[in-house]
C-alpha cells in the first residue's frame, strides 16, 4: 500500500494523530494481563502482513514529521548524535544495512543503485537523491551514521563489542525515554542499565547480554519495551526535563484520554558485518489512551497491567503520581471478562465491552 504521510507535530500544539490504520497495527506490548521485566527477546524475521514487525525498518505515516522533529532536536543540541572515533566503520555498516533493507522492503519509496563504491541513494518521501563513495566520509554531508539516521525513524545505539561486553560508543538519540546519550556514551551494558530497578537482581541483564553477544549477522532479534508519556512528545530527554516535566501535571479526568499516551519501543538488534558492532534501533510508537480502548481487549488488559504493576516500575517509568487518574479512566473499559492470549487486538473475536 502507499503510505499517506501525516503533517503533524510532536511539540507545542501537538497535532500528532494516529490513523485507524496506525491504531490497528500499534505494537501493544502486553501479551497477558500482567507485566514484569523479563528477557523478552525473539527473532526479528518479519511478522503478520501490515504489522510493525513485518519489515526490518518499519516506515509509517509519521515518517516525515518524525524526521522534521529530529532535525529540530539536533539543531538545538548536536550532542544528541555522537560517535567515538573508532565507530566510523560501524556507521558505514549501519548505512548499508538501512539502505539495503529499505530499498528492498519499500522499493516504491527508496532506491539504492551501486556501481562498485559509487552509490546512489534515492529517498523519495524526503526528496533526497545523493550520490557518494562508500567508505569515503568526505562525499556525504554528515558522518555515515548521522546521515542515514536523519532519514530513519527511531533512535539508534551502535555498540562496540569487546571484553565480552557491549559499549555504547555511538548513537543518534532524540526520541528517548528519559536517558542521555551524552552521559551514557562510552558505558558498558551494565553501567548504562544501572538505574533500572529489579532487573539486575533478577539476573535479566546477565542473560540478555549473553544473548546479544551471540547475535549473528543476518539473524537479528527484537523485543518491546514501554513507558508512559503525557502529550505525544518524542523528545522526553533528561536534557530538556526541566521544560517538559511540568506537562505531567496537566492531566485532568477530562483530558486524560487524549493527552495520556502509551509509549512503546520496538527494539531490534542487528550484527554489523565489517565492524562486528551491534546496532540497536529503538523505534518509538505513541498512542493515546482513547485510541487504545477502541479495542476492547486492549482496554481490559491495559487497566489490569497498570493496576497491578509493581510500585518500583511505576516510579521508574515516571507515572506513579498519575497512576490513580489513569486507573479511574481505564477501569471504565474493564468489565472483568477474560482476554485472549497474545498482543494482537483480535477485534473480530473478542467480545464488546459489557458496560
Amino acid at each position, binding site marked *: 500500500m502507499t503510505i499517506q504521510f501525516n503533517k503533524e507535530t510532536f511539540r507545542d500544539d501537538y497535532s500528532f494523530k494516529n490513523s485507524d490504520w496506525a491504531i490497528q497495527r500499534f505494537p501493544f506490548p502486553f501479551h497477558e494481563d500482567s507485566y514484569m521485566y523479563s528477557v523478552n527477546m525473539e527473532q526479528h524475521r518479519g511478522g503478520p502482513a501490515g504489522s510493525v514487525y513485518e519489515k526490518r525498518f518499519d516506515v509509517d505515516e509519521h515518517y516525515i514529521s518524525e524526521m522534521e522533529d529530529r532535525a529540530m532536536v539536533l539543531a538545538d543540541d548536536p*550532542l544528541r548524535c555522537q560517535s567515538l572515533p573508532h565507530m566510523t566503520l560501524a556507521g558505514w555498516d549501519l548505512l548499508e544495512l538501512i539502505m539495503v533493507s529499505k530499498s528492498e522492503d519499500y522499493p516504491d519509496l527508496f532506491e539504492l543503485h551501486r556501481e562498485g563504491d559509487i552509490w546512489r541513494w534515492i529517498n523519495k518521501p524526503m526528496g533526497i537523491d545523493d550520490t557518494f563513495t562508500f567508505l569515503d566520509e568526505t562525499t556525504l554531508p554528515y558522518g555515515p551514521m548521522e546521515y542515514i539516521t536523519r532519514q530513519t525513524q527511531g533512535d539508534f545505539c551502535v555498540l562496540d563489542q569487546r571484553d565480552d561486553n557491549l559499549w555504547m560508543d555511538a548513537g543518534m538519540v532524540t526520541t528517548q525515554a528519559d536517558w*542521555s546519550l*551524552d*552521559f*551514557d*556514551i*562510552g*558505558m558498558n551494558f*551494565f*553501567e*548504562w*542499565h*544501572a*538505574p533500572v530497578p529489579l532487573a*539486575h537482581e533478577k539476573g535479566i541483564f546477565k542473560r540478555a547480554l549473553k544473548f546479544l553477544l551471540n547475535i549473528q549477522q543476518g539473524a537479528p532479534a527484537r523485543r518491546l519495551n514501554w513507558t508512559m508519556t503525557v502529550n505525544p512528545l518524542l523528545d522526553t530527554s*533528561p*536534557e*530538556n*526535563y*526541566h*521544560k*517538559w*516535566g*511540568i506537562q*505531567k*501535571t496537566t492531566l485532568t479526568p477530562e483530558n486524560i484520554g487524549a493527552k495520556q499516551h502509551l509509549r512503546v519501543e520496538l527494539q531490534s538488534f542487528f550484527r554489523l558485518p565489517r565492524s562486528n558492532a551491534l546496532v540497536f534501533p529503538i523505534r518509538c510508537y505513541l498512542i493515546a489512551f482513547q485510541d487504545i480502548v477502541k479495542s476492547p481487549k486492549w482496554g481490559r488488559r491495559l487497566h489490569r497491567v497498570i493496576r497491578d504493576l509493581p510500585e518500583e516500575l511505576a516510579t521508574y517509568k515516571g507515572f506513579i*503520581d498519575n497512576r490513580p487518574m489513569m486507573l479511574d479512566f481505564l477501569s471504565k473499559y474493564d468489565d472483568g471478562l477474560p482476554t485472549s492470549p497474545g498482543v494482537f487486538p483480535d477485534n473480530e473475536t473478542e467480545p464488546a465491552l459489557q458496560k
Partner: protein
Amino acid sequence: MSKFQFPESIKSRPVYGTLKARPGKYHLMIADAEGAEAILHLHEQDAGLMAKAHIIYIPKGSNLGERLRAIRPAQYYEGPTYEAAASRIERVLEATHMGTQIYLTGTEGLMGQAMRACMNAGIPHTAIQTEHRGSVARRMQCVHCKGITEDVETDPFECSHCGLNLFVRDHYSRRLAAFQGVCIDAEDPGNVPEKVELYK
C-alpha cells in the same frame, strides 16, 4: 582516620578499595587533601617504594604536603587544583611503561578525573588502585546545561553554571568523571526541598 563506608549502590557507581604497596618499577601516586594519609600509609607498608615514586598532590587547603615531602619521594609536585595539574598528569601518564603501579586517593572527583586520564592513556585497569579518603563531596554534571559543579556536598544543590536546583543521582559516567544532576522541581516549580548533607 576512619574511612567512610559508601552505601550499596547501582552498577555505574565506582567502588574504591584500600591501597596496597605492590612490586613495580615505578610508582605514580596522585592524591588530594586527606588522600595524603593513604600515601603515608603506603610508605609505612614499604618505605622502599618512595625511591621509585612520583607523588602528585593537590592539598585543597590541607597541610599534609610537608609530611609527604618528608617521606622523600623521588619526584614530588604540589598543585593548586586538579585542573592546574591535569596537563602534567597527562604528560606523566604518556611516559609510563609496563610495570608502573598507579595509586589514586582522596576525593571521588580527584580519583575519577585521574582514572579518566589513565584510561585515555591506555593504562590497564589492573595497574590502578584507588582509595577514598576525606570529603564525600561529588563532582556533578548538570544534565541540562552540561556544566560541571565540583565538590558538591548537599542534595539538592544549585548548578554553578545555570543555577537550576538539581538532585544528586548515583548514575556515574567514567568518561565525564562525574555524577548526574537533574532538575528537582521540574514538576512543581519553586518547590525545592531543604538541602541535606550527602549521606545524612
